[in-house]
């Protein structure tokens, strides 16, 4: 198994929001998608996934509803709310600012651009 990278505090929320922004998804799907997109670098354990999902839902950024999956199984799908969309935009902007700042400090600004 490739070594997983610890997620920065608050980054998980951003990843989840980004992931379900494309389409409504259930918990397992979110974990899988993140792992897939990060080429197995980021592995989201359920121990942090579900608390994060619940936290976002309590904040009103995502909404959940029970739906039937393609193989006829009941599953809980999460989708972004309008507030969540705004929040995602803010978080993305601040992530960009942060990552470019870090890149500058590390002297890789030219490579990143």
């Amino acid at each position, binding site marked *: 198994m490739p070594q997983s990278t610890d997620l920065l505090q608050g980054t998980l929320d951003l990843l989840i929001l980004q992931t379900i922004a494309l389409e409504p998804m*259930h*918990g*397992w799907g979110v974990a899988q998608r993140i792992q897939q997109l990060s080429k197995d670098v980021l592995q989201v354990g359920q*121990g942090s996934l579900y*608390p994060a999902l619940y*936290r976002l839902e*309590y*904040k009103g950024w995502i909404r959940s509803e029970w739906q039937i999956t393609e193989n006829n*199984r009941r599953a*809980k799908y999460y989708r972004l709310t309008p507030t969540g969309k705004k929040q995602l935009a803010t978080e993305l902007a601040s992530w960009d600012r942060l990552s470019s700042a870090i890149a500058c400090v590390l002297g890789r600004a030219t490579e990143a651009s």
Partner: protein
Amino acid sequence: MISELLTRFRFLIFRKRRSELDEEIEFHLEQEITTRIAAGMDPAEVRRQALIEFGGIEPTRDQCEQQRPGSWIGTVLQDLRYALRGFRRNPLFTISVLVTLALGIGATTAVFSVVDRILFRPLPYADPSRIVSVGMVHSLERQEFLMGRAYVEWQKDQTPFSVLAAQSTMVHNCDLVENNPAQLGCITFQVGFLPLLGISPVLGRNFLPEEDHPNGPHVVMISYGLWKGHFDGDPHILDRMINVDGNPARVVGVLPKDFQFPTLESADIVSPFAFNPAVQQTVNGGFGDPMRLFARLKPGVSVAQASAQMQPLFNGDLNWFPPFAKKELQLSIRTLRDRETQDVRPVAWILFGFVLAVLLIACANVAGLMMARGAGRQRELAVRSAIGASRGRLIRQALTEALLLSFAGGLAGLAMAQALVMVFVRLAPTGIPFISAAHLDLRIAAFAALLSCLCGAIFGLAAALEKPGLAALNAKVSMSRNHAFLRRSLVTAQIAVSIILLSGAALLLRSFTKIEEQNLGMQTGGVLTVKLALPWWRYNTNQKVMDFYLRLESSLRRLPGTRAAGMTDSIPPEGSLGIRYSDLAVQGKPRGVPGIGGTVVGRSVTPDYFRALNIPIVRGRNFADQDRTGDESEVILSRLLAERLFPGEEPLGKRFLSDSVRGRGAIVVGVADNVKNNGLTELSDPEMYTLRRSVPGDWGGDRLMVIVDSAMPLAAMEPWVRSEVASIDRTVPVEMEPLNQTISRLADRPRFETTLLGFFALTGLVLAVVGLYGLIAFMTTQRTREIGVRMALGATRGNILRLIASDGLRMVLVGLAVGLGTALAVSRMLKTLLFHVSIYDPLTYIAVPLLLSLVALVAILIPARAGTRVEPAVTLRAE
């Protein structure tokens, strides 16, 4: 933002169902398993693998639950439930803590409510610390006064005050004459008086300067009480004409509801002072009218500076007075608070100290109890920590318990405080300023709440901060040594403090019994005092007054059971008009040195006075009824006065010169035994009785009362006396009281102080003993195993008893020694309150330690004896 709040609120109320999460997790697992099977893994092995990778389900559940807004409420509720269960399991502990807290907080709050007004609360005036009472004081009058002639000069030449304003020296009786007549208190003050205090009338206006003049228009302000009571709060009261003592006057204002005169007198009607500078050099023997003077200090001027600046003016005034008077007169400037609370402050401070001491004992008790409980729970805490409770969680749990206890204790304390304040107000004698207005207010409630929270937080943290070590899981380790030392010191300190409290209270009790038991020199049982308020504007000549009283005397004498009925202007142990000893001039003797010899009590009585009070005549004879109509003036001296005036001589037949006794000469006809005549607690003065003859000149002065000695029960006498008075003049109000009640009321103040301090000393003792008992009982339980081993090895019960008791006795002895030393050192503070009792009273300092040792011994022996009943076989096998 708002929608976010709404969402949170929605989840606060509708919690998600637990099964939802379960189903979600189950789905997650299934997906995992399906993927792995699809990847070709062994189906039997897959589920196990998936579960391992998934990790703990229960922590996830908890974490999801914790994300919920308001989930902390659940935690708190859980802590509360846990705490309550713990308290129910251990009722003795809970009740001890609650009672201790209730007593400590209750007593503190109640006493604080009472002394607050006396010691701390600002007076109800604008910037009260700058207001002073200004004037002269004198051996016969300790409250500042000033004569009008001096006031004229002071107004002109004073520098330290921004404003000066005068009021009349006392409230005088006046009559409201109308369909609904009433006797009221009247007073006068200057137009600047209310502005000086920073008070404005609640209705209408203050006097105008042109009204505050001699021969100005008749205007009055009335008290709020009179307006609301007598006039039913009449909204048209302003400009109404009322008739005071036969003079119509216009109401121009109503004083505020909570207005109080700086002299603490109560008056219903205020008229302008109408100061007339022009006549001050002639009226009242050239001194001018007496008055009370109040002033506001200029900014930056202290009381001491003001005194220094006024001294030259005062020295100038002294020149008008005869030389002997100069020695006795002094300038006095005091802040208003000092004047209002003069002799109550030491008591208030002592009371405050007593209560703080009780609070200390209570806090030590609670601390001790909490520590014992903490030590007993080390094992439980260790277990909880071992199965995963975090440090913060344990601390929060402990804090919750402590705060819950102190909150409950605080509530109980407030209830207790309310009850105590009510008791204090009921018990309190008149003359303690402000006490009737004492009540629990918000500030004081906050004070108590803060106190209880502080207690709780400190004890709670003390118990929780200790990290439960793994060692505690092994119950064989007893509580740590330094804890034991702390608890011992606490108990020792409690004993020391309660010794101080007890000896203070015992000293007061001894002093009080001496006051009660002292010989007054007269009989007080079966004597009725009758006071009559003759409306002076109808009884406006001495002749009318005399006629009334003489008729009353003869009709009272005819009543069945009357042994004697006499008239006097005052009754012991109160003094009366003071005469200067040096003014007494005896025929054929050199005059005394002016200003030396103090005062002599003078009383003007009728012959039956001595018979009614059963005061023995030791030489010569009593006044006789025929003396009352004779030309000669007779006097009777007290033994003290006779011995002082005529040492080794025959006093009978000696004659006082015509200018010395009431403006005429008098002959000594008898010597009466000494009677207490300067209050209950002061040294008696020499006394001179003049005969009140049946001539109008002897019936001046407004103080007169009738005393009746009767063989009948006094309760039966009262209606008879009332009807006799009514048969002469049915409009005269009568006030009657058995003499022994009057005298017992004089002792109210020391009784009140003694009761109060005694109550707190006993509370302190009870708390300290509870603490001692608790500690010994706890230590005995802790040492059960040790005791078992000792007994198994052959120790007798006696040995064990000695072992435990000696431990406790050591604490008691150290506490006694420290407490006694401190008590002896601080008892000086009580000195002003003690009557005929030394502050080092041996009886007190023997009895108090004895009492405490006795009680402490019981508190030690009960748990110690329980300790000896240990069965070795049982304890050794217990773990």
